[in-house]
């Protein structure tokens, strides 16, 4: 059981909507950038500027002119309260500023005060307030307790997406030199080295060679994990966590086996060795674009025909929804395939074509359920039908496992709860927020364990996997209960020339 | 800057539409029709003042109906037949015109205010022949 400096909430049978309790999370402040270069590398002032008040308002004005979402969302909210009980951070912290509309209002009250008629002349009447140092700190604290999961936007009658407001607020904070250490340090690393973890090329190469050796040892098959191979068919871009942490790396092994079996040449890239794009979290179009362009450059340089993304939630959002905008057009790639493709789409197609020899019983030691990652669920699609993002990963899991059940209806699909660590919160200085934010998911998982005998939860997001590995122990569960989807695929996939455990292996592999 | 230009364009459109709507047909100050008995009387001749009748005629008629149907009391002055007697006009040949015919006494306002009258599905719409 992990130690904590805060009260770890106990899981109940249901997640009840709590009574509001003001200020319970006001003390939680993610670390601010201390090394100026973490800001300046991203094009922001190194530290909080003197005239932050005016500069912040200027930025707000600029953003509302460039983003219709921001302008409309600031105006349209009717305070109906429909979103108030939808945020995982509110449900267990009770802090009303963690209610989506409460969070939005931190920015909205300032917008109203300086940019609307009603707020200029009747501030009290419409809840408009001056921009003060306290408000600025509230922005910092509470906009860094939003995982930008978009759950609120599903239930808002106008689709008001607090994630958009959070992103704008973070961009304002960055523009006055009040950035968050975690995100900005990581983005600086990507700009410099090419991935979030700051793994240099040789380190990646080393890991991949190790994996290839393991493959030969375990299966007697030369499954390759190619890096920077020119002329390969597919460029795989995957979160850098896949290169070395459990259970992520088991997912990478799964991808490798799938490519091997499909007989499709593929490669990874040292310069685009990161699917993640934290530029989205800080709402910075410029930084997001800079990070995304590496993928385009790598694809051009390696001369690939297709781009496939590995298991990562927000990365898939940037890839699916933004990549074409940020780094397109991709007319140099094979037009027969969507750009980019998700590894689950890729594997699902192969399964449907019957090109993978799968032995489901390899996963019989587990009863599985699936955590829909928020960005995949509410900001992207897979396949060509709406909702494919729910079906395709489940189809893949069901094709490789005998025991699969879903968690409670209200906690999956478009209503899925965030793992608690998304949106740039996956840092130890936000542990209290993360553990609290995980409560609804943990509750649903626990119920599935008790009622349906679930033993493991699969996910297709590097952040979800890291977050669950860390928080499961807080709730008395095991950290290895979280698995990668392609780990399951890897387990079940029988390689064509694999050394046999039984005798009937050869026949089964006849096409 | 472009805001100002938009403002002007919108203002011009506004004024134009206001002027257009001025051009719509006017309705006279009294709705009493020519050729009816009422037309020959002065303003105080009705069963109640014009202001009152305009607002409340339907209540009076409803009230009178209840009095008659439930209590058999026919003493009220608000009898539909009397309204018709006074307010129906005659055509050129001297035949009475139904009060709910187009532009006649009842119709002129009810059509104007989009109200369907159902009274005359049962009740007579021309004066009683004496």
């Amino acid at each position, binding site marked *: 059981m992990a130690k904590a400096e805060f009260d770890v909430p106990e899981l109940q049978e249901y997640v009840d909507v709590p009574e*509001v309790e003001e200020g319970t999370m006001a003390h939680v402040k993610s670390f601010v950038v201390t090394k100026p270069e973490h800001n300046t590398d991203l094009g922001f002032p190194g530290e909080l500027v003197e005239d932050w008040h005016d500069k912040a308002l200027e930025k707000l004005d600029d953003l509302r002119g*460039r*983003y*219709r979402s921001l*302008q409309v*969302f600031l*105006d*349209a*909210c009717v*305070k*109906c*309260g429909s979103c*108030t*009980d*939808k945020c995982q951070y509110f449900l267990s912290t009770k802090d*009303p500023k963690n*209610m989506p509309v*409460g969070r939005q*209002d931190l920015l909205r009250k300032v917008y109203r005060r300086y940019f*609307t*008629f*009603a707020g200029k002349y*009747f501030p009290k*009447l419409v809840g408009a307030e001056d921009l003060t140092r306290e408000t600025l700190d509230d922005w910092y604290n509470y906009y860094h307790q939003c995982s930008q999961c978009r759950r609120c*936007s599903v*239930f*808002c009658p*106008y*689709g*008001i997406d607090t994630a958009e407001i959070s992103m704008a607020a973070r961009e304002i904070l960055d523009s006055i030199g009040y950035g968050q250490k975690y995100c900005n340090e990581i983005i600086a690393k990507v700009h410099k080295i090419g991935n979030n973890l700051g793994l240099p090329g040789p380190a990646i190469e080393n890991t991949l060679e190790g994996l290839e050796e393991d493959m030969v040892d375990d299966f007697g098959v030369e499954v390759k994990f190619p890096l920077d191979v020119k002329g390969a068919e597919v460029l795989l871009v995957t979160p850098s966590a896949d290169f070395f942490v459990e259970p992520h790396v088991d997912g990478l092994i799964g991808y490798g086996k799938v490519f091997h079996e499909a007989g499709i040449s593929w490669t990874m890239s040292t310069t685009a060795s990161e699917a993640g794009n934290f530029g989205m979290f800080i709402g910075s*179009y410029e930084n997001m674009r800079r990070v995304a362009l590496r993928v385009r450059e790598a694809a051009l340089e390696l001369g690939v025909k297709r781009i496939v993304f590995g298991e990562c939630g927000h990365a898939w959002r940037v890839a*699916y*929804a*933004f990549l*074409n*905008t940020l780094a*397109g057009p991709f007319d140099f790639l094979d037009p027969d395939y*969507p750009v*980019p493709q998700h590894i689950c789409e890729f594997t699902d197609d192969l399964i449907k074509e019957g090109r993978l020899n799968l032995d489901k019983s390899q996963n019989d030691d587990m009863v599985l359920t699936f955590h829909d990652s928020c960005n995949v*669920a509410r*900001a992207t699609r897979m396949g*060509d039908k709406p909702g494919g*993002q729910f079906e395709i990963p489940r189809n893949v899991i069901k094709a490789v496992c005998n025991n699969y059940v879903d968690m409670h209806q209200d906690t999956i699909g*478009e209503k899925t709860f965030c793992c608690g660590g998304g949106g740039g919160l996956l840092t130890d200085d936000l542990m209290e927020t993360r553990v609290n934010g995980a409560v609804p998911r943990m509750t649903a998982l626990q119920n599935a364990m008790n009622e349906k005998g679930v033993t493991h939860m699969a996910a297709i997001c590097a952040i979800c996997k890291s977050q669950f590995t860390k928080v499961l122990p807080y709730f008395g569960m095991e950290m290895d209960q979280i698995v990668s989807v392609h780990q399951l695929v890897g387990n079940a996939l029988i390689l064509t020339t694999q050394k046999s455990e039984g005798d009937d292996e050869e026949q089964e592999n006849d096409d | 800057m472009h*805001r100002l230009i938009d403002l002007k364009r*919108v*203002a011009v459109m*506004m004024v134009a539409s*206001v002027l257009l709507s001025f051009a*719509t*047909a*006017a*309705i006279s100050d009294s709705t009493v029709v020519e050729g009816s008995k009422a037309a020959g009387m002065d303003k105080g001749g009705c069963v109640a003042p014009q202001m009152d009748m*305009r*607002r409340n005629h339907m*209540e009076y008629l409803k009230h009178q109906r209840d009095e008659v149907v439930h209590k058999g009391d026919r003493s009220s002055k608000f009898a539909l037949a009397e309204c018709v007697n006074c307010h129906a006009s005659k055509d050129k040949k001297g035949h009475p015109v139904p009060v709910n015919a187009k532009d006649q006494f009842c119709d002129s306002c009810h059509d104007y*205010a*989009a*109200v*369907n009258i159902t009274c005359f599905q049962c009740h007579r719409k021309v004066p009683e022949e004496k």
Partner: protein
Amino acid sequence: MSFFFALLFILASLVFVVGLTLKIIQYAKTPVPLKIVTTPAPVTKSGVVLRMFREVVFFESLFKSTKWTWIFSWVFHMALLLVLIRHLRYFIEPDAVPAVVWTLIELVQPFGMYAGFGMVLGLVGLFLRRVLVDRVRYISAPSDYLMLLMLGFIGFSGLMMTFVVHTDIVAIKQFFTFNGGQLPADFPLIIHLSLVALLMLIFPFSKLLHVPGIFFSPTRNQVDNPREKRHIVPWAKALEEEQN
């Protein structure tokens, strides 16, 4: 009095129409640099029209959320719609529109009359919710309560006229169709009209902007096709050219 109301309504209409038009122009002109539709989302334009229709007519997202708010809100809005259609009779000359339209307006009359009760009932429910649910109370500013009270009193004064102390509809119509005519000096009417003018005056400056807002909400009105079709706005394009 008629003179005062004439001025008031000319002013209120101007503010309402100009204010709202400017807001709509502002929304329409503000770019949407990224595809941010909330998925699962329609992949075709007609699918988006259908989604928007369900949002506007059935309040689909609200329905997914809290049934109580949905019931009160939906009853209020649908009743409001009927009431407003019924009110068209004060502003439209029967001869100015096709006969079918006028027949339709006639048909709505009885429903519109009783819809007034639905409207007030819905508003009472919404008001109670605002006062009683602590989360909603927390997010409410004075204007949020006043808005409901204002609409409630508009409805109440309207119902008073419809069912208790009638007013002179024909005179009102003459007044509002610029045919001279004096406004009847009836107390409920004065309340009704003053509050309606206030409503029109604050419309473009208040949360009533949810009416145009819903149609401009990118999370609801975008087609889910980022991979199929490149989406790029001018300022992003300019940035791209500057950096390449």
